[in-house]
């Protein structure tokens, strides 16, 4: 969740590309070749880092997944073909942890999109001390996952935790927020929404400020109520922002690991263990790096399918909207 950095600035990049072609036309072939070289030279430092820390590990990881590769350095010559992949498909723990990841995504994405829109609409109104609301919604996002986990573990604590303390004071029974199999995942989702909603909130806030005020004024002159304005102006004008948030949110939720690892360690009885934690455990606690690599590839394939499906679905919708 915390690794969600940088939003694609695609439109800006596209505007700049034509400018690059200009010198070629003006100064002829030699300059073009030289500027290509210069461009390559500028990209080179990034390219080296990219190959070293992304492309090479991806290749090496795939190689490991074909061996009985161990963290202790043994098994590196023990070629197994696709046995690790077959074990992945037959491992009930892999499937149950995949399901926990998907369940987390299904539970966390709707509130993180809808609530962030709602809060952005509220914080965008002309009220006194508007900055305070914006800061309040955004500030939890600045906390590191370890701090978030620590805060919420004590809030959820049975016996004397904040929530259970209030529940017992008003005469209700305690809830085993992190120890009850049927509640633990929901507790993690609540924590995650509190923690990361600020990011979507800021994106929506930026989107809201891009909508020209005069459209609202025209609508108000035509007698549209506030609710009608939101439905017919705000929401359609935010469609692109929503698409972006949805894509980023689904990907971020599928990558869930740290808050669950810190809050429940995948428990109780493995009921919240996400697939990344299972991969981590197999690789680093059980030393089975080869098997962990195979599972990583299986999970990577799943994310790829989800992303492609999302692009296809949302892309078609946009085409329909444009045409």
């Amino acid at each position, binding site marked *: 969740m915390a690794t969600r950095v940088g939003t694609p600035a695609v439109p800006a990049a596209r505007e700049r590309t034509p400018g690059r072609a200009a010198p070629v036309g003006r100064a002829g072939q030699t300059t073009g070749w030289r500027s290509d070289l210069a461009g390559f030279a500028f990209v080179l430092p990034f390219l080296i880092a990219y190959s070293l820390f992304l492309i090479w590990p991806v290749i090496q990881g795939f190689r490991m997944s074909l061996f009985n590769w161990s963290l202790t350095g*043994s*098994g590196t010559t023990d070629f197994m073909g696709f046995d690790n992949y077959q074990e992945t498909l037959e491992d009930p723990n892999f499937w149950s942890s995949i399901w926990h990841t998907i369940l987390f995504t299904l539970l966390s994405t709707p509130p993180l999109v809808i609530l962030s829109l709602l809060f952005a609409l509220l914080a965008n109104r002309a009220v006194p001390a508007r900055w305070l609301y914006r800061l309040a919604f955004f500030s939890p996002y600045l906390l590191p996952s370890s701090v978030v986990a620590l805060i919420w573990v004590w809030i959820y604590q049975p016996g004397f935790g904040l929530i259970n303390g209030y529940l017992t004071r008003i005469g209700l029974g305690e809830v*085993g927020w992190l120890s009850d199999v049927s509640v633990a995942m929901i507790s993690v989702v609540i924590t995650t929404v509190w923690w990361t909603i600020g990011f979507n909130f800021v994106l929506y806030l930026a989107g809201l400020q891009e909508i020209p005020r005069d459209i609202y004024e025209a609508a108000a002159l035509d007698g549209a109520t506030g609710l009608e304005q939101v439905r017919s102006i705000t929401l359609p004008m935010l469609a692109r922002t929503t698409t972006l948030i949805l894509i980023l949110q689904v990907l971020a939720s599928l990558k869930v690991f740290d808050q669950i690892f810190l809050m429940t360690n995948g428990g109780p009885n493995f009921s919240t263990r996400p697939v990344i934690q299972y991969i981590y455990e197999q690789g680093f606690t*059980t030393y089975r790096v080869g098997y962990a690599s195979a599972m990583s590839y299986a999970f990577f394939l799943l994310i790829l399918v989800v992303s492609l499906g999302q692009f296809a679905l949302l892309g078609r919708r946009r085409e329909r909207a444009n045409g």
Partner: protein
Amino acid sequence: MAVAPGRGRPQESTVSRRRFVQGAAALAAGAGLAANAPRAARAEGRELRFWNLFGGGDGARLQEMQAAFSAANPDIDLNAVTFAWGPPYYTKLAMSAVGGRPPAVGVLHASRLPSYAPAGLLEPLDPAVLTQYDIGPDKFLPAVWEGMQFEGQPYAIPLDIHPFIMYFNTDVCQQAGLLGPDGTLLPLQGPDAVIDAFRRAQAVTGNLGLAYETNGVAPWRLFSGLYAQLGGTILSPDGEQLTIDDAKAEQVLSFMADLTVGSKVASPNQDGPASVAMFSNASAGFHLNGGWEVTTFETEGIPFSAVPFPNVFGTNQTWADSHVFVLPKQPDDDQGRLDASLRFISFMLKDSLTWAQGGHIPSYLPVATGPEFAGLEPQSNYAAAAETPVYDPRAWFSGAAAPLQEEAGAAFGAVLNGQKSPREGISQYRAAMEDLLDTPEPI
């Protein structure tokens, strides 16, 4: 005309860039010199790298011992690093040995030896050499020293034994009539007597009789001792066969479930910090945990003492583990480093009274049987627990924070929570163990 200023600027920037590069080079050289300076000053001190996982209260005591060592051995430049407990530390140590850049000395849980020694991650120790540093079989309890051996050779030197013990609040137990005239806890024997004592303490506190962690690996610690009291085993001695006795395991799990969901003397949902806090604020009369919490309760200033784990099913056997010193596999042979390492380990053993103040029982007999340790309260009250330790079964997936414990914590925790029956808990654990035995060994 308009071009001139434009052309002037890049020239300026070329100069400044050159100057910048020169400056940077000079700076780098200076930094290099500065970094070398202190090392040159301590050149005669041999560096000794030591890795450990003591981040808690015991970490502070360790630093005290390290300072004493450095003061007594000015020729050794001790470089100690503390890592996060559990898998992060173990991963790091294993990978450093594989990668050829291990520390000279490391700390391990004795229960982790089976996943380190056969994997070739550790240096075997020569008993003849150890004797020169006052380390040998005569200095440790036989059961403990035996646990350091692999294929007839010692691979580790135990610093302590930390058994699972029973803390009790002396005020609460006094009011509950559980103390004898001399202020010690009356002996508890058999499941009924133990639960009855917890129930009487609960009547006094009005909250819990027993504060006990129901998640994490704690359920394994309780189970392990009780199951051994019945004579049960998990694995065959070679670690290849599952030997779980379902009837005995179910008897133990039924007793554990009785604590939380039957007699309700303990909470069915309680994590480690909460169980410690409940005992610290006298909301519970008893607490089951390792000796390492002694410092916490002393700091809280509550009236408490501790005894070995009660005899529930016929013996006083209780789960235990040891912190041990090991020499990770070194890429080269260096007698000087070996000498420094063993001097360090020997010093720590002889200084382990400091270590004992944190609640661990020293395994080095000259300290453990000395008059100073006998005067240490409550440590000396539960020191007898070190004579009946139940170590984790030996297998590559066994040991502190390894799968054998994690799976047990999950399955038995679900029984303590009341979400699974004892029978379901044992069958879940059996299935998980069978899976692990079927897994190709990664070491």
